[in-house]
Structures are given as C-alpha cells and as structure tokens.
C-alpha cells in the first residue's frame, strides 16, 4: 500500500491520470456521450455539486471578499496609495483568491466523495482494469461526473467572481453609478488580453483538475481490497491540491515575470 504522498512521486500514477484525462475530455466533448442516462447523471451531479452549495458558497465568498477588501483598502489608505486599492483588490481577489478557493471548495466538498465512489466501484469490480479505460462503463459512469464537476467549478467560480466584483464596486463607490467610469477604467487596466486569457485558462484547468484527479486516482484502488479505498481517496486529494497549487503558481509566474 502506498501513502498519499507517494502517489505524487509515482510516474505510473501520473501517466494513468494523463491517459484518463485524454479519454475523458475527448468523451466529454463528443455529443454521442450524452445519452439520456448520461445527461441525467450530469445534471444530477451539477445539482449536488453546485446548486445545493450555491447560497452557502456565495455567502462565504461575500464575507471573505468584504474582509479582504477592507484589509486592502485600509492598508492602501494608510500608505497613501488608495488610488491603487481597487486594482489591488481586483488582482488579488478576483484573479487569484476566488478561483483558487472555488477549486479547493469543490475538491473538498465533492472530490473526496466522488473519488471514494469510484474507488469502491473499482474494488467491487464494476470498473475493469485501467488498461480497459475507454470501455462503455467509463462513458456511462465517469464522463458525466467529469463534465459535471468542471461545469460546477465554472459556475461557482463565475458567480463568486461577479459577486466579489460587485462588492468591490459597492464598498468603494456605494450604491451609485457615479464611480462606474472609474471602475471600468481600472477593470480595463487589470484585465488586459493576456490576463483575461490566462484567467479563463486557469479557471478551465482548475475545473478539469477538480473533475479528473479524484476520479482518475480512485481507479487506482485495488480490486477486492477495500483497504485500498482510503489511500486512493487521500492520494486523489493530495494530487489535486498539488496540481491546483502548481497551476496557481505557474499562472502567477507567467503573469508577473
């Protein structure tokens, strides 16, 4: 049995993940995958992953955003650079913190659950050995979950970012449209083409990571060995956190270096 941390260092595990990702993305993009049963599965998954948690997640985002906005704006006023406060908030909150937080939230909320489910299926022999990934079973069971997880991350991330932007505007300008032009100008200077493309790309990669890694790692559970399930789930989460962190750092490196 391998400990969670060791999965990160196992090339075979990453190869399996890469192969699974390729199959799953290709399948998720092909319309023939979405049989009525698969579609229903996807809708159900989105309902549980995103809709059920939407209110709570947005409330949490609002509180965190207000705290961060307050910290940044008061610090900016203290240092006499209040004209950069909005830009700072947008860069820190909307571009970095909220996508990362959404990815981690969805990973914690559903990643372990889905990973455990897939691992149990593997233990029970409902899914064949990894060499036969791409069989009918994968389409029916796994691809809708992958698509649902990616869409959930996208939806939560988009709405949370919109809420954070609206809160930023409200905190700085109040309930008027007086500051709209100034705010638009800051948005224009923050979201240049590179940043916008990078932001969309990062959101996409976060969504795929959250959707793929727990499921792909759950497949590593050993058939007929229920003890391997917790390890596979833990390994999936560790790998997921590692990938999400690496993507966040990589995007920062590309953006600011």
């Amino acid at each position, binding site marked *: 049995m391998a400990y969670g941390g060791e999965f990160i260092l196992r090339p075979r595990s990453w190869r399996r993940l890469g192969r699974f990702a390729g199959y799953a993305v290709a399948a998720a993009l092909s319309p023939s995958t979405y049989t009525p*049963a698969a579609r*229903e*599965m996807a*809708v*159900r998954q*989105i*309902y*549980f992953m*995103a*809709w*059920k948690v*939407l209110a709570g997640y947005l409330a949490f985002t609002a509180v965190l955003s207000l705290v961060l906005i307050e910290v940044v704006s008061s610090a900016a006023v203290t*240092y*006499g*650079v209040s*004209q*950069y406060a909005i830009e700072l908030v947008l860069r820190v909150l909307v571009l970095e913190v909220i996508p990362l937080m959404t990815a981690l939230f969805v990973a914690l909320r559903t990643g372990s659950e889905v990973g455990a*489910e897939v691992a149990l299926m593997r233990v029970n022999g*409902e899914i064949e050995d990894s060499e036969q990934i791409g069989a009918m079973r994968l389409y*029916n069971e796994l691809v809708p979950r992958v698509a649902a997880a990616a*869409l959930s991350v*996208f*939806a939560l991330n*988009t*709405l949370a*970012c*919109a809420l954070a*932007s609206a809160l930023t505007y409200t905190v700085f300008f109040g309930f008027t449209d007086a500051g709209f032009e100034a705010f*638009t*100008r800051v*948005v*224009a*200077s923050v*979201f*240049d*083409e590179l940043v*916008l493309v990078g932001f969309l790309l990062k959101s996409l990669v976060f969504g795929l990571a959250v959707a793929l890694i727990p499921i792909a790692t759950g497949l590593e559970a050993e058939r007929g060995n229920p003890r391997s399930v917790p390890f596979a789930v833990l390994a999936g989460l560790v790998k997921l956190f590692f990938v999400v962190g690496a993507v966040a750092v990589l995007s920062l490196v590309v953006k600011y270096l």
Partner: protein
Amino acid sequence: MAGEEDRQGSAGPGGFSLLPRSLGVKVGILIGLSVIVAAGFIVYVLIARGTFEQTQRLYLITDNAEGVRVGSDLSFAGFPIGIVRRIRLRDDGKVRISVRIPVEDAKWLRASSVFVLDVPIVGAAKLRAFTSNLQDAPLPDHAERPVLRGDTAQEIPKLVATARNILESMEELVQAGSSLQQSIANARTVSERMAGKQGLLGAALGSEENAKKVLAAIDNTNAVLARLDGVLAKADKRVLSEGGLVDETQKAVVQANAILGEVRASLKRVDGILADAQVVAGNAKAATADLGALRAEVEASLRKVSALIDEINRKWPFERDTKIKLP
C-alpha cells in the same frame, strides 16, 4: 447528504430514476446564468479596453520612459483620455511611447498641446497633457510629440540644499541680538511713541520735548504769519493807494524827465564851450611851438654872451679865475 437517494439510484448500472423536472430547471438556470455572466464580463472588459472603439495614435518621444508601463493612462485635466499601448526604444536612443486615444476624447488634444511625464516619489509615473487653447487645430492622427519630464526625485537634493540655506538664514535672522530682532525692538519703541501723547511727531523726533519745541515753533510761525499779513496790508496801502509810493514815483519820473531835458540843453552849451576851449587850446599849442624857437634863440644868444664873457675874461687880466659859472 440531501440527495442520498438520488445517488443511490445512480450507483447501479441502469438504475437511473426519472430526473425531477425542477432539478433540471435549476441546473439549467445555474449554468445559463453562469454563461451569461461570464460572456457579459468578457464583453464588458473588451468594451472597457476600447476594443470596439475608434481610436487614434499619438507617439510621445522622451529620453527616459522610466515608470511608464503599458496600460498607463494619459490624463487631461485629471481625466484619463488615453492608454499607453506600446513602449519602444528607438535606434537613436530615444523612447517612443505609443498612446491610443479614443476619437471622441481626442478633441482635448490640439496641435499646441504639451505633454509632461510626471514621476512622483510614490506610485506610477503619470503622463499628462496640457492644452492651453482648445480652438487650435486638432492633433492629427499618428502625431509625434516630445515629452517634458518632471522628475520629483531628481529635484529633491537641490531642494534640500536650498531649504537648508534658507533655514540657516532664518536662524540667523531669528536669533537674539540679530538685526531683525533689533529692528523689531526699534519698531516697537517707535510704535509706542506713536501711541503716546505727541503721536507720530514724537516718534519722528525721538522725544516729547523736541516735539513740544516743534509745536511751539509752528505756533510762533503762525503768529508771525498773522503779523506779516497786517504788514503786507499796510504796505499795499502805502504803495498802491492814491498818493502812495507808486503815485509819487510816477510824478517824480515826470519831473525827472523835465530835468533831463534841461540837463540836455546845458550839455549842449557845455559842448559849445568845449569847442571854444579846443580852439583856445589849439592856439596855445601854436604859441607853445613859438616859445620853443624863442628859447632856442635865447639859448643861442646866451651861449654867445657866455662865449663873449669868456673871451673878455681871458683878455681881461684882473680876474684869473677860470671857473666858469653856468647860468
């Protein structure tokens, strides 16, 4: 978990329950809303960045573009009207800052506009445009303009040196015994005197006694002037009134005229007398000339007599005295 039974249904192969209609609608709303928000945000950002706006270019040339970055604003009267799109070092070592200005904002820039790069101590550099006359010809597209650089940081050492000089001078001025202090003390003395009984006069003359003297002198002068007034009135009367000095003088002048006429007649007579006298004098002159000849004759006769006497004496033995007595 709220949807436990739903998940149970999905666990087994072919065990899908019929999807509740509301569930599909909710998920549809969620995904649709997210897509609309995301698309709306992208469109908003593109509009904010002026992707759909007609723009014109302005090239600003400077020696040093430090602090300027792509995305910096070009502001006019504190309002951002353009965005720096590109910064390039030219072959001649100068920096070309390419600024994109929406056509509707380009009206603030004229051919006579001046551009300044302001580098504050804290914060990013600011590009500013100044237009003194908004009636000038509009700035053409792709215009190239130099940038004046106002670097606060470079001015600071100079400023500190000047400020130190000023402060030292101030210290000298303010310290006890300085000329400023003395001046202030004197000013206070003067103002105290001015506030005193004799006022400004006392302040100007230094003491109250002097001021009193001046006042007394002024009083005396006034009295003298009053008397002088009387004297002048009397003099006026004497000189100009009937039988006054001027009147008498006129009479005297008439008399003097008569006298002068008499004098002139007398002078004419004197003239005649003088002419006679001249004639007399001419006669006397001629007589004088005759007298000369007469004398010469007398002298000659005397010499002859003398010679005769000498002869007689020589021939006359009674007298041996050879001494000759001249007349």
